[in-house]
């Protein structure tokens, strides 16, 4: 069968139009559903830093009840009129650290919406192949890691992609960001997998994924320092004596050892 050039060109154009229409139809038709799925996934990740879900949990409802969000600037001052959930961390990452918007998600107590049980901070950076991100949950002592979640775009499956596994993330729980004298040392993931119990500032590595681990370390280090002004403000607020000495001053006061705070917090979540 011999075809003329114009037939071939005509066929190619028709093909492009039909297939293009199919694609845009799918993209437009599913856009809303996709945005919803992404939104739910973000909420799941934020909450995932502090709790585990059971089958059939209504994530949206839990989120609405337990998360109080705000946005701060690089100086730690609250920014009005910005919705924390709408802040695109990836887009902000491209700006200079001073110009970014920093969302804070406060995980509040179920009974008392003014009592913060954890500060959940988004973290973002580069892994080996592409971006990685996560949410770091700090106990009210602002030192102990209550939980952490990581996610990634394209880390190597089975190696760097393991940062998305619960098993890896659990290694961070109860580690400390500051040393005894209050200096920021961060929590570092080591090279290679030893399986030993490590001190407060180190977690076991992932064999075969040192580059990803480096990315994770940088990400935590960077973002905790970006949030430092805000964290300092909370500390200052907690340290100033209150007009009415409240009953649970123990809980609010910053305690660098974090022992008292720790126990109250773990009791709460185990309910």
């Amino acid at each position: 069968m011999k075809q003329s050039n114009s037939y071939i060109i005509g066929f190619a154009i028709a093909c492009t139009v039909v297939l293009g229409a199919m694609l845009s139809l799918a993209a437009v038709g599913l856009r809303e559903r996709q945005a919803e799925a992404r939104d739910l996934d973000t909420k799941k990740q934020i909450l995932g830093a502090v709790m585990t879900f059971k089958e059939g949990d209504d994530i949206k409802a839990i989120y609405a009840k337990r998360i109080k969000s705000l946005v701060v600037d690089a100086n730690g001052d609250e920014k009005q009129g910005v919705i924390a959930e709408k802040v695109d961390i990836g887009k902000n990452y491209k700006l200079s650290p001073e110009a970014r918007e920093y969302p804070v998600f406060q995980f509040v107590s179920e009974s008392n919406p003014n009592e913060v049980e954890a500060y959940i901070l988004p973290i973002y950076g580069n892994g080996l192949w592409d971006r990685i991100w996560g949410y770091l949950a700090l106990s009210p002592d602002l030192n102990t890691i209550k939980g952490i979640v990581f996610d990634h775009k394209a880390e190597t499956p089975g190696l760097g992609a393991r940062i998305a596994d619960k098993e890896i993330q659990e290694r961070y729980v109860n580690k400390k960001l500051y040393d005894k004298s209050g200096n920021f040392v961060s929590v570092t993931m080591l090279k290679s997998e030893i399986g030993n119990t490590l001190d407060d500032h180190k977690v076991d590595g992932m064999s075969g994924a040192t580059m990803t681990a480096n990315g994770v370390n940088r990400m935590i280090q960077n973002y905790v320092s970006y949030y430092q002004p805000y964290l300092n403000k909370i500390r200052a607020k907690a340290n100033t004596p209150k007009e009415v000495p409240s009953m649970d001053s123990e809980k609010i006061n910053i305690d660098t050892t974090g022992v008292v705070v720790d126990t109250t917090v773990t009791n709460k979540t185990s309910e």
Partner: protein
Amino acid sequence: MAETTIAKVKPSEPLLSKRRKALVNDPLNSNNPITIQVLGICSALAVTTKMEPTFVMAIAVTVVLTASNFIISVIRNLIPTRIRIIVQLAVIATLVAVVDQVLKAYFYDVSKLLSVFVGLIITNCIVMGRLEAYAMGNKPYDSVLDGLGNGLGYAWIILTVAFFRELFGSGAVFGFKVFEAIGISQTGWTGAAFPTNGLMTSPVGAFIILGIIIWVQRYFNKYTEH
């Protein structure tokens, strides 16, 4: 004239004739796209660390394969021979993009796990191989059966690989911790510990299991490379 009447009298082929059954059955075993034709190895290695993403991947490939076989077969007499490869590719790419969009909308978690590998179905040699080798020269219904057969042939192999990789690599099947459930945990239970095998979570593990499957299959099929 006489000839055409004879052709009309001849009964049409039954919907599931022996030949058509073979279209579906052959790729499952004696002409399996992965183990015999050794196509689509790349994704068989990459996505098979866990059962769940593998399962979705298997469905995605089968859908794309069947649908593209059908579409190409319908328009096979219209496609200009000189640009047929590009047309095939365009059809596959469109279908894959649609599948990717659907996964993102309804199975967000799994689509995150599969990430780039859904897009890479486009380059899966099985899909294009079937279009070029079968759909370009056969009727739509037969092509659908052929696509289905090859899709399922691909599916059962990668699911088998994933089963062993997840079982030994993570000690689980579909995320269910099998060894913990029967009392053997990683930390050890009265001395009987089951350490997970890191080799299985890396692509090397897939190579080894795939090799074993091919070995076993060829032993029973008496198939030899010529």
